[in-house]
């Protein structure tokens, strides 16, 4: 599957998304993410383009998202972020902690400005929540293990792990996830 994706990207002329490992981070709970982010959106990655800087000392990647919903802030129907790392030809620069994006993958993104004024994912991988699809119902789910039991969707509760490995426990529906973020934001209002 991964080979297929890589080949597809090559055929499309799209550079492989950035490598990522992580770094020393502060921990963001969902509540902290919601409050500290300037923009929160649901969108699909439509492309990743990595390039060298002028002096060929750094590789950065531009990642573009088609936005389907804003939970906080507004940046228009398309949003592009730029982050450190990526692959150009045989050269790759990995940056600890940068999230990796799969073209067409749907995500909830928590964005904040860096010192250049551009947007990046808050808390690196912590500010990227991937939207999963329940294999049986097709319902969109987002992992949220820290949310209290009674709110969670336990898809496939009676199924064996092998049958439900694609949907681990502790999820909210995408709508429920966005509502939970709204609730945190409501708490902030005076």
């Amino acid at each position: 599957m991964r080979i297929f994706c890589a080949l597809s990207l090559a055929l499309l002329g799209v550079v492989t998304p950035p490598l990522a490992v992580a770094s020393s981070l502060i921990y963001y709970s969902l509540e902290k993410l919601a409050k500290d982010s300037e923009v929160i959106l649901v969108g699909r990655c439509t492309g990743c383009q990595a390039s060298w800087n002028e002096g060929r000392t750094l590789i950065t990647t531009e990642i573009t998202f088609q936005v389907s919903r804003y939970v906080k802030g507004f940046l228009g129907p398309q949003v592009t972020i730029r982050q450190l790392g990526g692959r150009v030809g045989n050269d790759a620069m990995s940056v600890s902690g940068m999230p990796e994006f799969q073209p067409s993958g749907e995500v909830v993104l928590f964005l904040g400005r860096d010192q250049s004024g551009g947007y990046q994912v808050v808390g690196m991988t912590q500010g990227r929540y991937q939207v999963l699809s329940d294999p049986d119902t097709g319902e969109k789910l987002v992992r949220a293990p820290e949310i209290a039991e009674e709110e969670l969707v336990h898809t496939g509760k009676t199924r064996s792990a092998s049958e439900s490995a694609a949907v681990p426990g502790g999820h909210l529906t995408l709508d429920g996830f966005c509502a939970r973020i709204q609730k945190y934001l409501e708490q902030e209002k005076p």
Partner: protein
Amino acid sequence: MSKTGIALLLGLLAGPGTVSAYTFIYDNGTRNPAGRTTGAVTFTLTFRRPAALIGDPFAAARSAFATWDALTTANITFTDGGQVADDSVGRDGVNKLTFNSTTNINFPQGAVALTTIFFTGGNIIEADIAFNPNPPQSLSVTGASGTADIESIALHEIGHFMGLDHSGLLSACMYPFGNIGNTFKRTLTLDDQIAMSVRYPAVNFSATTGGVVPELSLGDSGIPGRGAQAVALGATDGIVVASALGDDEIQDGVDAIPRLEGLPPGSYKLYFEAMDGPVDTNSFDTNFPGKPFSLPVTRFFDPAAILADSGINDPAQAPNFVVQAGVISTNVVDNHVPTRSTLNITTLNGSVLPVYVLQGASTNLTLTGASFSTSGTLLITGSGVTLSNTTITTTQITTTATVASGATAGPRTILFIGQVNNIQQSSALSGGFVVQAPAALATTTTVAAQSGSGGEAAPTTSSSDGGGKNQSNCCVATVLLGDRTSPGMMTLYAFRNDWLRPSEAGFSVEKTYYGHVSPMARKLASSQALKALGRHILLQAAVQPLQTVQSSASPSQDLAANF
């Protein structure tokens, strides 16, 4: 001030005090773990220091390199390449550590430090460590309350610098989230040591250690335990030794068969833990790109399991697995098909960091999560830790943990076992509870005290003259004035940072200093009489005049202009 006086000061000042699951980073081009072709690496620091930081960040960084360097089971050697002015991060042929890296990179919100790594063909050809000059968390060189310890962070980033990815063990230096308010992660855990040693094995490492490749067959699914970590516990003491993450088909085309290598020979209990918080597969993007899945079960590994088994959740019932030197056991399969667990511990004391408790002491613990059954059992692996006053709701557990004075020191796992939907399930915080020996704590305190209080001990470090194992060098001024944060030393540092370093001449003199001062410092350190004389001269000739100048002038270029 005469040029002679300046030259003397430079000689004394320029050294900053030369005190000095598991997983691997993958190259997504070659699909192989990326590493350096040699463990012998020269690192370079840059001159600028974090604003408003008290103490010596360079000594902290050097100390972190020295800690890895001292690891005898790994064939790595760090050579101190001195300091340079260029703070820029990127591919320039220099493996750099900088505290002021905004010259050409933009930190995302929430990052305290990061490591940039360049690969070609799966080989790391260069890496740089960059501390955020505007960190979201206050930094210190002492791990003081409310601060993140620079040496601990550097130790973690150096792991990345060499190709290590994160560990899912809360106690490990390579855990993705750093401790706040202590210096415990200045020490490498066994997990960290094994990771580096497997990547860069010293002679005989493979022959004197062993391992196992525990495989969860999940029966008919064809979806093995992607994203779970396998953890090895000492069979009798319950100490967490090492963890490894399933590799998600990158390395060998097969999902999630963790290789637990580098284990000292002995008996272990093995378990799989779902990466479902606090660490999840999000923290391992090169291993799990775009796949936020995790084996949704935590349980002990049982090669004798049959399909009808309900699975072993209690370490007391788990079989021992014997590791022999020089042997990696493969084709060890647990054929049981587990039921997905909804039970999940996600935070400890409102955080995702481990708890450290002294032998003979007790502490209160609060765990939060989901599906806690009120009739369930909370335990800490091994003997010597008892829990009392435990209360359980479906989302929270509170308890008091008391550590016996004779309890074995080291990281342990917090485990909750309960019935959910009539099926026994469990969840673990691996390495979440660390028993500390008083001696270990005293050592930590001493390290902090070297930079925070008096004492004549000459701080040790690698330096520009080698950086090999067990080398010891020191800065003349530090030897004479003792403590790196004594008023005298702080005066000298202030002069160096605010007045001297802005000039290129200052940089070059400082660099030259490195090559000549160590023998002198060693000589001084060996003689109390020489030290007393030197201290008197230094205070009279340098510190007192400087204090006068600094209190009456802004840091203009006046002094530097004397060059």
